[in-house]
């Protein structure tokens, strides 16, 4: 009996030792992968920062209106942000493949889904960034046009346009990574509808004459230019 126990124990011990003997190199491998990954990611971060700096990425973001947005969100400058994102993506990739080496069956699916998830995340991010750019561009265009057309509350109008597009882009991005699809859809519908309604009310009540002027300009008939407007500035 005791022999049996001893056998079992020794067997278990041997097994454990075996397991450890088998597992230890994996851990070492994992640690080295993780460490190497960190180093590679860090180097990549530097390279990306350098390349972006060379490309004057920050100035471009400034022009696209991204910079003030980051500032309001208390985020670092754009090139730092991008290089950080690259660092984390790369390092998480290494981390996961390191864990994978350990051979935990539970974690295996996670790795596989992360590999599948990364490109979608990138595309979603891309969608969002494009949306952000578009939102900013149209915000500025709307603001300037509204100011120069003497439309009432140009900032409200331009802000409405900006949020409309941001919401749309955000919803599209979330939809793309398939996060809480139903909720996103519902929330989007509600938010979009609200903004549209707000705009409609704003335009209808406050900007009726703007609309009229717009229509008049499109269909010139016996329109009467407001006095003073016909003075040529040239």
């Amino acid at each position, binding site marked *: 009996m005791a022999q049996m126990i001893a056998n079992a124990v020794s067997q278990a011990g041997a097994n454990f030792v075996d397991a450890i003997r088998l597992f230890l190199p994996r851990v070492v491998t994992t640690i080295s992968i993780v460490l190497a990954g960190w180093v590679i990611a860090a180097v990549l971060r530097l390279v990306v920062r350098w390349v972006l700096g060379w490309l*004057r990425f920050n100035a471009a973001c400034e*022009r696209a209106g991204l910079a003030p947005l980051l500032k309001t969100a208390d985020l670092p400058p754009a090139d730092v942000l991008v290089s950080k994102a690259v660092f984390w993506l790369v390092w998480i990739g290494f981390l996961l493949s390191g864990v994978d080496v350990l051979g935990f069956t539970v974690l295996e699916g996670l790795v596989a889904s992360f590999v599948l998830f990364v490109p979608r995340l990138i595309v979603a991010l891309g969608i969002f960034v494009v949306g952000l750019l578009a939102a900013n561009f149209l915000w500025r*265009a709307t603001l*300037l*046009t509204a100011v120069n057309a003497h439309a009432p509350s140009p900032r409200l109008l331009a802000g409405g346009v900006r949020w409309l597009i941001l919401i749309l882009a955000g919803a599209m991005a979330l939809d793309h990574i398939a996060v809480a699809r139903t909720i996103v859809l519902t929330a989007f519908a509600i938010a979009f509808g609200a903004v549209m309604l707000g705009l409609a009310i704003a335009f209808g009540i406050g900007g009726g004459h703007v609309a009229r002027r717009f229509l008049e300009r499109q269909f010139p008939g016996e329109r009467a230019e407001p006095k003073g407007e016909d003075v040529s500035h*040239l």
Partner: protein
Amino acid sequence: MAQPSLLPDELVQELMAVGQVDILVGLPTLNNAATIAPVVRAVHRAFARHFPRDRTVLINSDGGSEDGTRAIVRDLSMDEADTLLMRHSLRTVHRISAPYHGVPGKGSALRQIFAAADLLQARAVAVLDPDVTSVTPEWIQALVSPVRNQGYDFVAPIYARHPLDGPLVSQLVRPLVRAAYGLQFAEPQAAEFGCAGRFAADCLEQAVWETPLAQYGIDLWLTGHAVAREYRCCQAPLGPRTVAPGSQRPGLAETFGQVVGSLFTLLEAQDASWLSRTGSEPLPALGLAPPPPGDAPPIDGERLLQSFGANLRDLRSILDAILAPDTETALEEASQVRTERVRFPDELWVATVYQFLAAHHEGVMRREHITQALLPLYLARTGSFVLQHAGTDAAAVEADLEALCLQFERAKPYLVQRWTRTTPR
């Protein structure tokens, strides 16, 4: 596919028959049926009255009018007085109307006119705006004679008008062109001009025709090109310029964008030729004595100033990217008084313009947005200037405009410094 030629075969046939000419007058048109006839008559009168011995041709380059403009130009008969006058001219009078191909706009029309001038070896070319109702034969004489008789290469007009008339020219275009190029053009972007055949031929060789400048800024470009290439320039007083009331001209926002955008783009393109220039020289004015200025235009200064403060607030985040902080602060301070007391001083205006120009050069945002953002400030400056000069006599206004020009010249080193600090992408 082969590129369509500047001169369609039919036009070449007609030009061949006309042969070499001394004077070519060009009329770029697009739906000008209502106003074209008197202009054509004036041109023929000018030929008969002032250039009876010269070989002349009138070329109408049309952008595809649908109101029969071309037919009017082609078939216009002269009334009895003109017929007598025409007999006065020794030579056959030629009048050609041809459609141009390519991007619609004055640029393509001018290009065709210049190509014709080159082909016909014209000594002098004059171009008129078909919308102007105050064209007289003397206009053509004034634009052509300096080229024909005195060897000038480019003749810019001087219109008889009140110094408050045309504020976009007097507040921005004229002083900026003067400070940049160092020549005192009264109307750097006029639809009428005269030039030598060799100038036309040289312009034809330039790349400008394929650029957006050709569409809206060709008048400015011609002035800039004449200065940049050191052609002999002069001015010709023409008299009052009135545009037909019914003519379809774009609204202020559009005009402003086109003019200022073109001006900024032009300065960008030709910076090699103006950065090193300092001061300015007057241009000889040839021909008729400058007629007395007209009445002050009915510009409502207060109305222009009305939304100055609100506009500044609305545009703050955009102006932040363009203007220096102290300039922005000064603007805000200026706007925080009652409308009729708003003062937009010369120094501030010049700083504003130069910072916008530098921002345009650096490309801090989309370039149309930069010019659009300048419009509210321009209106405020104009409003302030008009209010300040209500009831002032023309000479005093003239003196203050001169002071503004000098301020532009004085502040030029700042612009040059900002300009050379950043090389545009």
